[in-house]
């Protein structure tokens, strides 16, 4: 694989998996204090989600009606909600729901977008035209509104939210993968492999798709902030994870009824969403800067 590096459209962008893991932006990231902070926050978030049972001081669903709506204190860092549940514990457990949504959507959308894009880019012609038309159609849908309608139709729940968000978030990935595939398709090493009578399937899976993965991953990171916000909106409207699950958007929605007198009930989960989404945005933005100074649109 070494020989191909130099052939790949000069300095346009790094496209190799191994370059993705080893090279420029990890070091560049260190020179970007903001992006670095974002990475730290995300790492912490994942850590919190993983060790929720250890970190959360209380059972997130345990109701203690006597101690409802307590303000933040040393025993309840983020106060308690209307059922006397510890908000901090709920936030910690809620991180799991948020991250599960974000990663599930990415895990669904990434491969779908990659396959569609790579196939379109590799085969070109009619296949390309059909797939890209489909992509453009879905791209032009109002995604949040469609997700709302979809979630309303098949009944609320975390999985519904995941599917609803996935439905409309694959097109940007497909477009990107196609652009990448177009470049890789004509590279020398693919032509070489072709001369050895490699099958289309083999070429696609072993030679072209892997080349597109790094930029797809970056694009997915950029999407994660949007997914976080969409999931929160769905939760806010009662279409996400169902009570008593500590979904952040749903927590805001519930806390809204008490917001004037007990600000923390709605403010705390809002801050959690803001922080998470901001971290994703900062990291995505930084990655984009490092990888492609000219920026993708959309």
């Amino acid at each position: 694989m070494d020989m191909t590096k130099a052939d790949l459209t000069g300095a346009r962008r790094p496209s190799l998996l191994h370059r993705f893991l080893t090279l420029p932006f990890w070091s560049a990231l260190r020179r970007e204090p903001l992006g670095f902070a974002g990475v730290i926050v995300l790492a912490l978030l994942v850590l919190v989600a993983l060790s929720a049972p250890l970190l959360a001081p209380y059972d997130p669903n345990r109701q203690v009606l006597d101690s409802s709506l307590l303000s933040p204190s040393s025993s309840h860092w983020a106060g308690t909600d209307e059922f006397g549940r510890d908000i901090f514990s709920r936030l910690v457990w809620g991180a799991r729901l948020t991250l599960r949504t974000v990663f599930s959507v990415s895990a669904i959308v990434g491969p779908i977008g990659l396959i569609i894009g790579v196939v379109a880019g590799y085969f070109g012609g009619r296949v390309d035209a059909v797939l890209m038309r489909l992509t453009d159609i879905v791209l032009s849908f109002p995604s949040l509104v469609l997700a709302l309608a979809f979630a309303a139709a098949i009944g609320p729940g975390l999985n519904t939210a995941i599917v609803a968000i996935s439905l409309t978030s694959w097109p940007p990935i497909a477009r990107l993968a196609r652009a990448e595939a177009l470049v890789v398709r004509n590279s020398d090493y693919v032509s070489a492999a072709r001369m050895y009578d490699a099958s289309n399937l083999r070429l696609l899976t072993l030679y072209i798709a892997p080349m597109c993965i790094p930029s797809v991953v970056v694009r997915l990171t950029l999407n994660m902030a949007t997914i976080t916000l969409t999931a929160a909106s769905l939760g806010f409207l009662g279409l996400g994870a169902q009570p008593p699950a500590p979904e952040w958007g749903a927590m805001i929605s519930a806390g809204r009824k008490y917001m004037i007198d007990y600000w923390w009930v709605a403010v705390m989960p809002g801050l959690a969403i803001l922080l998470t989404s901001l971290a994703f945005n900062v990291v995505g933005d930084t990655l984009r800067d490092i990888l492609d100074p000219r920026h993708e649109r959309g």
Partner: protein
Amino acid sequence: MAQPIMKQLAAMRLDKRLVQLVLSLLALVAITFVIGRMLPTDPVGSIVGELADPRAYAAMRERLGLDKPVAEQFLLYFWHLLQGDLGVAALTGNSVSDDLWHAFPATLELATLAIVLSVIVGVPLGLLAALKRDSWVDQLIRVISLVGHSVPVFWLGMIGLLVFYAGLQLVGGPGRIDVFYEGLVPPVTGMILIDSLLAGDMEIFQNALTHIILPASMLAYSAMAYITRMTRSFTLEQLSQDYVTAARAKGVSPAGTLYRHVLPNIAVQLITVIAISYGGLLEGAVVTEIVFSWPGIGQYMTSALLIGDINAVVAATIVIGIAFMLLNFLSDIAYQLLDPRTREAN
């Protein structure tokens, strides 16, 4: 670029785009229909109430057309849609098209003011960030706009109401005007700012302004990030061009260069960015409207969601979808017409 060629090109692209638009609309309608039919229950119960008599129940069911077989419902749905008839909303008992006709101007008014605000603030910030690239100013602007891009707007709206309405009493509360002003201005466009001006009622105009400014600013803030970011990067791109260097060499000031050369050049690209943001705002208004009791499509749709009124949900989706697609379409056309380089960039 010879004029005739460009025109021809634009015309050709227009055909293609139109086909694309029509296809997209058809796909949207098909998908929304499928979504509509997936709903496990019917909305009859929520209309006739918990203790209704079976006869009343059946009557409402019939009125909503839910007593017919699904295939027939499907055909009827399509047929009616072609005639602009979106069915009867369980939520209001009105025809959905009437409802949307009344709700859409409110959303449009809100989103329009929001986009104006976000351009007025976002573009200068973007230019500033580009000029001061990598300075603390640039970083600050970046953080400000990223926060705007990351904050849940409905949450920000709640806090905004708390601070600016309840606390500082600086702006009007939920709703489009103070309640007792309702019904005093004849609805012409459905947009209160315009209607009150038409009626020459400055008191109501001012009152409406105090009400719209908060939700519009919140939405504007969330849309600003993208506009600022794109303005910055377009500007940076232009600043690195030879003609800028040349102009600077001729002694034109940075400001002069910016006004005379850079701005006109990035204007075309910005149109697209603004159009996309505008579409996004129409969508973003959906959740924000609930917080501000804003009687637009968003509130309509979410109220309908809560009672499972799928006719209304589907129709609202279609209307927002169409507005969204039309905006994209128009911006594409504008882009094609104004900038022949688009094709290469794609």
